[in-house]
C-alpha cells in the first residue's frame, strides 16, 4: 500500500518538475524571438526543413482525405436526396476539424519527430555544449528558429490541407458522382462563415503548431543523451503531440462552436 502511494507521489513530483522544465524552456525560447527576427536567414532555413519538406505529404493527404469525404458524404447524403449539400459537408468538416487536426498529426509525425531526433542527437554529440563553449546561445541559435518556423508553417499547411481537400471532394463529387458543380460551391459559400469557420480553423492550427513545436523541441533538448534516450524522446514527441492535439481540439471546439 505504502509502495503504491510512494510511487504515486514520485510520479507526481517528476511530472511536475518536467512541466516546470518545459515551461522554463518555453519562456527561454520565446525570449529568443527578437534576436531570431534580426537574423531571418536562420528562420528561413528552418522554414524550409519544417514547412517545404512537409508540403508534399500534407497536400497528398489532404487530397485523399477530401476525396474520401466526397465519396462517403455522397453515399450518406444521397439517401436523403441531399447530394447538393456535399460541398458544405466536405468544406465544414475540413475547415473546422480535419484540416487543422490531421495536418497537425502529420506535422508531428513528419516534422516534430525530425526536430526531436535532430536536437537530441545534437545534445548526445555535445554540439549544444560546444556552442555554449563558443559563447553562442544554443536556444537563440538552434531552438527558437525551429519553434518560430513550426508556428508559422502550421497554419499555412492546415490551410493548404483544407483547400486541397475541398478541391479533392469536388473532383470526386462533381467529376465522378455527378453532383452539380455550381451547387457544390454555392451551397458551400452560403453555409461556411469566414469568421466562425475559417478563422477558428486558423486559430486551431496556430495552437497546434505551437504545442507540437514546443513538445518536439523540449523532448529533444530534454532527452537522455544516448541513442536509446533519443529514440525514446522521439516516440514521446509523437505520442504526446497526438494526445495534446486531440485533447486541445476537443477543448477548442467546445469553446469555439458551442453557442
Amino acid at each position, binding site marked *: 500500500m505504502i509502495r503504491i502511494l510512494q510511487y504515486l507521489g514520485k510520479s507526481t513530483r517528476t511530472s511536475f518538475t518536467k512541466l516546470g522544465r518545459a515551461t522554463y524552456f518555453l519562456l527561454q525560447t520565446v525570449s529568443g524571438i527578437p534576436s531570431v527576427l534580426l537574423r531571418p536567414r536562420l528562420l528561413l532555413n528552418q522554414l*524550409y526543413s519544417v514547412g*517545404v519538406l512537409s508540403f508534399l505529404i500534407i497536400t497528398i493527404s489532404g487530397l485523399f482525405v477530401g476525396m474520401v469525404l466526397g465519396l462517403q458524404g455522397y453515399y450518406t447524403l444521397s439517401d436523403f436526396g441531399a447530394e447538393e449539400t456535399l460541398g458544405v459537408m466536405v468544406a465544414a468538416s475540413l475547415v473546422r476539424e480535419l484540416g487543422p487536426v490531421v495536418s497537425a498529426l502529420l506535422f508531428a509525425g513528419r516534422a516534430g519527430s525530425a526536430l526531436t531526433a535532430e536536437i537530441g542527437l545534437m545534445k548526445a554529440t555535445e554540439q549544444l555544449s560546444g556552442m555554449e563553449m563558443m559563447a553562442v546561445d544554443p536556444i537563440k541559435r538552434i531552438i527558437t528558429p525551429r519553434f518560430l518556423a513550426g508556428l508559422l508553417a502550421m497554419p499555412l499547411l492546415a490551410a493548404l490541407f483544407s*483547400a486541397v481537400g475541398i478541391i479533392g471532394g469536388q473532383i470526386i463529387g462533381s467529376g465522378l458522382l455527378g453532383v452539380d458543380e455550381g451547387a457544390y460551391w454555392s451551397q458551400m459559400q452560403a453555409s461556411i462563415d*469566414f469568421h466562425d*469557420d*475559417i478563422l477558428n480553423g486558423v486559430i486551431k492550427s496556430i495552437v497546434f503548431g505551437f504545442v507540437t513545436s514546443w513538445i518536439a523541441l523540449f523532448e529533444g533538448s530534454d532527452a537522455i543523451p544516448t541513442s536509446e534516450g533519443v529514440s525514446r524522446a522521439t516516440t514521446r514527441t509523437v505520442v504526446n503531440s497526438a494526445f495534446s492535439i486531440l485533447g486541445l481540439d476537443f477543448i477548442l471546439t467546445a469553446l469555439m462552436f458551442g453557442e
Partner: protein
Amino acid sequence: MQHTSTQDTLVGLFVAAGIVGLFFLSMQVSNLSSFGDEESYTIIARFENSGGLKVKSPVSAAGVKIGKVSSISFDPKTYQSVVHMSIYTQYNTIPTDTSASIYTAGLLGEQYVNLDPGGSEEYLQQDSAIEITQSAIILEKAIGQFLFKSAAEKK
C-alpha cells in the same frame, strides 16, 4: 550555403502556396466575398411569427436573392416579430404594397423571406415598413391541426 537561392525560392513558393490556400478558403469557400460589399437599404416587416428565420437568412423576390435579414427582434407592445431586412440598392423599385412571407426552401431547408411585389407606383424607401405579411408555417402546428381535423371527422 551554395543552395541558398534555391532554398529561398522553395520557401517563397511554400509561403505563397499557403497564402493562396488561405485566400482560396476565404474567397471561394466562405461567404466573405459577399460580405457587405454591396450597398443596401433597410426595410422592416412585422410578422406574427417568424419561425426559424435567422439573421443572414436570404430575402428573395421571384426566386432571386435580393438581400438578407439583418436583425430580428421582438416587439413587447404588439407581440410581433420585427424583421429588418437589408435590400441591395440596385433593387430600389420595390412597390409599397409588396407582401412579405416566410417560406421554407424545400421540406427541411432553411427559411427565407419571400417578397411578392404589388402594383403600387410608389417604392419602398430606407426604413419603410411592409404592411402585408404572412407568418412562417410551423410544421408541427399544421400537422397538429390536420390530425385534429381528421380525428373530428371520424366521429
